[in-house]
């Protein structure tokens, strides 16, 4: 590993610790990390969009034309139309001509809706309905490979899915009061929803811990790199950067403790 790679790794560790410092309280290090992420993401996206969309899809298509003919002499002059529609979007910044931006917007929404509705209905509504109403597999009611209550393909699971989905839909039916048998089915529906939310919550906890694990792994890699004497660049100042970083963190903690004791002595 060369020195500059290590320097960037150190910076990544610094930004990681700066971000986690928010768990203690808001502070300038966290603000710096937050603004850096937003700025870098936006800047990176603009460049990616330029090189992957505008250049190949517009400028290169019109490249054989001349700007003083407004590219109308290119072999594919119709690419000017989406370009004009794109420019019209910017009229939103004008109070007087903002309404013009509705034209490209209407075209965009119209096309998107036309593409989306049939495919979304077919694949995310109809196919789910067919799956929910599949014939019950009585021959494998308690599991496809022997007794297994957790088998999602068993007949029992099919019954649970149907009853759960129907009950959850009834819970959201507000035109009839949730009393009597109807209310009891709605209660089954809310329980089904709660079990679903519980599963999502469990996965979410795992996801959040995973993010922390990744940061711990990166900090671990960084500290290993700093003390890896077999590395050919070991003497290039790795430890100086390491201790500089540690000094910043310790300095911050000492400063926080001093402020804490000051506030405490004032209060007493």
């Amino acid at each position, binding site marked *: 590993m060369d020195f500059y790679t290590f320097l960037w790794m150190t910076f990544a560790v610094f930004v990681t610790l700066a971000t986690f410092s928010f768990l203690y309280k808001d502070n300038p290090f966290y603000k710096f990390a937050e603004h850096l992420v937003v700025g870098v993401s936006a800047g990176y*996206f603009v460049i990616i969009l330029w090189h*992957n969309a505008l250049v190949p899809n517009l400028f290169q298509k019109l490249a054989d034309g001349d700007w003083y003919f407004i590219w109308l002499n290119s072999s594919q002059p119709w690419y000017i139309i989406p370009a004009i529609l794109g420019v019209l979007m910017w009229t939103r910044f004008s109070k007087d001509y903002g309404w013009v931006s509705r034209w490209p917007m209407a075209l965009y929404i119209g096309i998107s809706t036309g593409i989306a509705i049939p495919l979304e209905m077919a694949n995310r509504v109809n196919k*789910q309905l067919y799956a929910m109403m599949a014939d019950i597999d009585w021959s494998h009611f308690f599991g496809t490979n022997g007794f297994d209550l957790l088998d*999602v393909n068993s007949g029992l699971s099919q019954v649970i899915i149907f009853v759960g989905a129907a009950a959850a839909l009834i819970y959201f039916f507000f035109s009839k009061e949730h009393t009597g048998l109807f209310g009891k089915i709605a209660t089954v529906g809310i329980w089904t929803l709660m079990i679903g939310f519980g599963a999502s919550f469990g*996965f979410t906890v*795992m*996801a959040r811990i995973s993010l922390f694990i*990744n940061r*711990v792994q990166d900090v671990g890699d960084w500290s290993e790199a700093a003390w890896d004497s077999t590395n050919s660049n070991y003497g290039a100042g790795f430890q100086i950067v390491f201790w500089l970083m540690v000094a910043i963190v310790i300095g911050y903690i000492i400063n926080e403790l001093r402020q804490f004791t000051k506030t405490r002595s004032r209060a007493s």
Partner: protein
Amino acid sequence: MGIFDKLMKLDRRWVFLLLAVVCVWSYVVPFDIPIRTEPESEAIYSFIDSLPPGDIVFIAIDYDPNNLAELHPMTYAVVEHCWRKELKVIFTALSQNGPGMADQAIRDISDSLLVDKVYNGVEFKGREIIRGKDYCFLGYKPYYALIILGMGQDFRLPFPTDYYGTPLDSVEMMKGVINYDQVACVIDLSGGSITDAWISYGQGRFNFPLALGLTGVMTAQYYPYLGSGQIFGIMGGLLGAAQYEEMADNPGRAKEGMRVQLFAHLVIIFFIVVGNIGYFVTRYRQKKQKEVS
């Protein structure tokens, strides 16, 4: 103030600190925990393992660096498995901040293929992974739904060139590869709504075998697609990646992370139980006091 009142007023920063200490400790202390594989991730492994050399797998690295922690281990495990099996891979990165990260990951995995390795008792000789021959990275284009639809017609429509600017007709492995009909399956590794587009506009429209690698937050809501047969497998979060690593006998960051998950979950469960006990005891006492007064 009793112990339960103290518990109810415990500063949440103590919880964060304890969780951080436990995570770091379980990361530093080396030990293994058993990983139990599940049918939904086994289906993906078995599918790839059964493909003959030369078949093409389409892997969509559709996530940004903010989902890297969960999805990168999946990418590393699946792609290495594909290349060890001498499969060819087409990559896309349809999430706007992802292409640079995806390119780096592809290079890293290529490097790891240079050495000989033994997986599940089978020796795989190291070999050089050649761009254009073993893989083709198409890169990023905006409006993923239209890109997914366009690739169903011809990969060259949305991607006349690959990520590095080589025209697709000049890429060796893309000769005769027109659209999804020539790929064995699509594996979408995603941390956002691109997955919905792969289901509706991709699998639903062109009917190819689709498997998903998802972040933990998303996983539960995509299980219905497994039941309906629209997808043939799911890897959910770091656990899904760890299961794949376990099956491929290629331990990586996900398996390493599972022991941290174990102890972190124990701490969280402990605080949930203690918090609930504190809540119910406090409520009971308040009720008693009301009755007395």
